[in-house]
């Protein structure tokens, strides 16, 4: 039953967006998110919509996947909308009990909701088009210059890789232990939250013990294969910045400038 869980939401493809260098994609995503916070009028969102339509269109990711990312965060979006509607001072247009809805509040709420929606969809476009491995590679390379000030770039990336590698293994193991405990009469499904949480103990204890044993063996195997940290280590796959990466960067810079223009120069 735990087997259906997929890690990340990567949808493989061979499009210009998929093939962008992961470093560039991460930088673009951050620039996009930063740009969202520079927008101060609805007009600015026109550029965002254009940018998103272009990116999603090029990536060939079905639009419903893009919006699926919004689902888990719907509560936060609704809460933001509600807070903005009721808490903003201004011209009152409607009153329910003690709560006043103001015109400014409505505008502010719509504005914030749009910002959140674009933020989430923009970020999920990154994870939809980038495999966890190249994402890890990208993060490692981007953090590399920070190594001189003590950021453990290689170690972080190695930890992420190993975590990704062992998630399916540990899920499989959880499934196995669960079945073994159920065969001996363990009950994971009935009772209130407390008794269900208590039923998890015989599941978690063996799982933790085995995870530690695995970690021990893996460390030994890595040492036996000459692993000695990130120093002097090379990589088989080299990231390279190509023409399309420069193009993407230029488009992003133009987009960013357009947002700045909309903020400071459009009345």
């Amino acid at each position, binding site marked *: 039953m735990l087997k259906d869980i997929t890690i990340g939401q990567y949808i493989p493809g061979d499009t210009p967006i998929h093939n962008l260098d992961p470093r560039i994609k991460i930088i673009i995503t951050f620039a996009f998110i930063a740009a969202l916070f520079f927008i101060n009028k609805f007009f600015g969102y026109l550029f965002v919509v254009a940018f998103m339509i272009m990116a999603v269109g090029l990536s060939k990711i079905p639009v419903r996947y893009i919006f699926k990312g919004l689902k888990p965060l719907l509560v936060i979006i609704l809460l933001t909308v509600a807070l903005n509607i009721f808490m903003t001072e201004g011209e009152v247009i409607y009153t329910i009990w003690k709560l006043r809805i103001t015109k400014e509040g409505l505008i502010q709420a719509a504005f914030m909701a749009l910002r959140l929606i674009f933020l989430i969809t923009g970020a999920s476009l990154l994870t939809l088009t980038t495999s966890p491995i190249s994402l890890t590679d990208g993060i490692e390379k981007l953090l590399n210059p920070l190594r001189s000030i003590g950021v453990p770039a290689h170690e972080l990336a190695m930890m992420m890789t190993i975590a990704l590698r062992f998630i399916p293994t540990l899920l499989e193991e959880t499934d196995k232990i669960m079945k073994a405990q159920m065969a001996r009469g363990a009950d994971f499904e009935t009772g209130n939250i407390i008794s269900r949480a208590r039923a998890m103990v015989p599941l978690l204890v063996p799982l933790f013990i085995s995870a530690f044993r695995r970690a021990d*063996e893996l460390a030994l195997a890595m*040492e*036996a294969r000459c692993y*000695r940290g990130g120093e002097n280590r090379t990589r*088989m796959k080299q990231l390279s910045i190509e023409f399309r990466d420069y193009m993407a960067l230029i488009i992003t810079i133009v987009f960013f400038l357009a947002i700045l223009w909309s903020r400071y120069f459009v009345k």
Partner: protein
Amino acid sequence: MIKAKNVSYKYSNQEGKDYFALKNINIEIKEGEFVAILGHNGSGKSTFAKHLNALLLPLEGTVYIDGMDTREEKYLWNIRQTAGMVFQNPDNQIVATIVEEDVAFGPENLGLEPNIIRKRVDEALLTVDMFEYRKHSPHLLSGGQKQRVAIAGILAMKPRCIILDEPTAMLDPSGRKEVIETIIKLNKEENITIVLITHFMDEAVNADRIYIMEEGHVVMEGTPKEIFSKVDEIKKLGLDVPQVTELAHMLIDEGIDLPKDVLTVDEMVVELCRLK
């Protein structure tokens, strides 16, 4: 290639008492040999295997790998590259999320050029016949396939010797066969020295020489034919002989004229046909 001289090693258990896992071991393995080390659990065979990769250092005595003393720090990485090690659980020795990335892990640690790594990875995967799975995720492979990927990961480091610590203990019969066939191929075609630690007698039959360990000692040494013809001695150690050898032994006891050192079904067929 491998030389262990008077090697002893002890563990301390939880009560602080020491016990010797290895006592005065003397083993010599020549380049290109296929040696099996047999023994049941706790006989010290895994402890010995870890000495060959400098994962453990001898308390007394010396281990030389290709003339390099394992206790010398400066040889450590050379030794680990020369004598690669494959472990029992295939899941716990695969590091990366894609087969070819995992095979590249060793050469990457050696700091080789990317194009050289690429070449070695492809060669290693072809040798173990896993090339078509190079883009797969390891957790979707069978046990035997995973173990072959682990072997490829060692091969890509171009070792002259591979130590396999019960590589088939967690596999089903077909996976076991895949792995043993791969090992034999490496020994015969690539001339890689093989040290196979196992408790499956049928696997040891393929070796050039066998060592049997018991409570930290080497108790028997010889070719498979020499070792397995001593059926009673081996049974006394709590080990089995290959089924066919045991059958031959029982038939001899019944007064049938068979040689004592029949190890495989094919040999048995030949011998039985000769009887008529």
